[in-house]
């Protein structure tokens, strides 16, 4: 065979490398997909057991206000009402997002529009540092600073939804800030130029053009922050009081889905009602993070349609 024909018809080294690379990346993707699916399957199969095996009514589970998995009544049913934890989780999440958003957007605007390059770098590393602090440290500070502060100024034990929300506020602040910074940076420079050239002030430009053009990105940042707050367990557990009753207000001891899970999962026996009930809480958590993800997707799609 002549050498040219030989060269063309045989697989070259580069083509083989390409194939290897493709095999490696596909295997990684498959591994990740398998892990995610098995988590879903595992949590779902365990979480559903409460309703299929222990015959707890789904509606009673979601709307019941009493949580006593260890105590069974005359008919052998345990009191499994998850509403207090659902309310607690959403309470701390929304409050934390509410507190954090103005600070995050303000900081992000300062970093992208006002600060000098040096200040911007400095703030960026401060924000990154906040991300790196372990949640037990946040919880500890919450326990030794926030809880006594609230006890002193608002009465009660100091444990409760407000304390949880304040700790989470600090924890989600860097997430929301850095994602808002990214979305502000993504606003094309020529929008700003066009606005200034029409005689707008810097503030008018920020308020009427830049923030508006970045709205979908900022909303996405807030949702991501909320997803993080919703799933945070340790720091919240340290300051919320862990009382699985309907919260009476912001200052009374309460609990979240995550705090009940981390407190209880080691103290129950696999396959019992109380263990299955915790898996159901985990299933709610998982479904909520799915919902947060879908919301982010929808916002992203809407943002793309506008531009």
């Amino acid at each position, binding site marked *: 065979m002549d050498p040219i024909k030989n060269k063309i018809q045989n697989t070259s080294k580069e083509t083989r490398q390409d194939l290897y690379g493709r095999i490696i990346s596909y295997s990684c993707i498959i591994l990740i997909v398998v892990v995610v699916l098995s988590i879903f399957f595992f949590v779902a199969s365990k979480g559903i057991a409460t309703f299929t095996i222990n015959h707890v009514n789904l509606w009673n589970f979601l709307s019941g206000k009493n949580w006593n998995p260890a105590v069974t009544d005359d008919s052998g049913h345990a009191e499994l009402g998850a509403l207090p934890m659902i309310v607690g989780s959403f309470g701390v999440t929304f409050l934390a997002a509410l507190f954090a958003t103005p600070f995050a957007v303000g900081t992000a605007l300062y970093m992208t529009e006002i600060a000098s390059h040096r200040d911007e770098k400095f703030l960026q590393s401060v924000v990154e540092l906040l991300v790196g602090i372990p949640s037990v440290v946040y919880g500890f500070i919450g326990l030794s600073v926030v809880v006594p502060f609230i006890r002193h100024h608002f009465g009660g034990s100091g444990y409760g939804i407000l304390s949880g929300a304040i700790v989470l506020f600090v924890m989600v602040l860097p997430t929301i800030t850095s994602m808002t910074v990214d979305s502000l940076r993504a606003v094309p420079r020529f929008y700003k*130029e*066009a606005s*200034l*050239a*029409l*005689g707008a002030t810097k503030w008018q430009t920020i308020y*009427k053009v830049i923030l*508006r*053009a970045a709205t979908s990105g900022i909303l996405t940042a807030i949702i991501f922050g909320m997803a993080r707050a919703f799933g945070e367990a340790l720091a919240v557990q340290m300051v919320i009081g862990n009382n699985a009753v309907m919260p009476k207000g912001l200052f009374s001891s309460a609990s979240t889905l995550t705090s009940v899970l981390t407190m209880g999962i080691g103290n129950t026996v696999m396959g019992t009602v109380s263990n299955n009930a915790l898996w159901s809480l985990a299933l709610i958590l998982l479904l909520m993070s799915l919902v947060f993800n879908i919301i982010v997707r929808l916002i992203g799609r809407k943002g793309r349609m*506008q531009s």
Partner: protein
Amino acid sequence: MNEFIETKDVHLYYGEKEALKGINLSFPARGINALIGPSGCGKSTYLRTLNRMNDLIPGVTMTGSVQINGQNVYSPKTDTVELRKKVGMVFQQPNPFPFSIYENVTYGLRIAGIKDKQLLDERVEESLKQAAVWDEVKDTLHKSALSLSGGQQQRVCIARVLAVKPDVILLDEPTSALDPVSSGLIEDMLLAIRDNYTIIIVTHNLQQASRISDRTAFFLNGELIESGQTKQIFMQPQKKATDDYISGRFG
């Protein structure tokens, strides 16, 4: 004689690099003035000194004087916000905001505090008509300006500038990103409004300069080589560099 816009000995530096080397140039009120020259010759930089857009670029220093209608543009008392309402600018890339056409055109008026719906409606129609794009967009005023073609976007951007009724309109290569038909529409539109505005247009397109401008200034390497009536610059240039450039020997 006092011209409407007078610039004297304008030097501009990007850091150490001297981009404008002492420009003395003036423009009378009303009419179309073209700035021509090869890339990097400083014509866009010069244009941006007139509404102080160079202020936005870090590391820029400028000396010399720029007067518009007898007022010193670079006086510390000058309010750049007021200045830019009087001296509008159209950019090379169409840059409508990601809002509706109506909101784009009324942006300048709204930031100036005008809320009267009837006045806004009138200005929108008037400006879009002047910018020769009214017939194409009148039924879709509340659709996103980004859904328009590039040529339509650029004319909406011109309408956005016209809506605030400036005295001066600066255009920085407004047609270089557009197709010939859209460019032609914009040229016709500029000719139609030349009696009401002082128009200064930077262009790479020599035919465009000769078609529409009353006066032309030729820049080269940060210096003003020659300026005068367009006819004279194109038919009897005084300097060899001008002759070489307009006859296509370089650039």
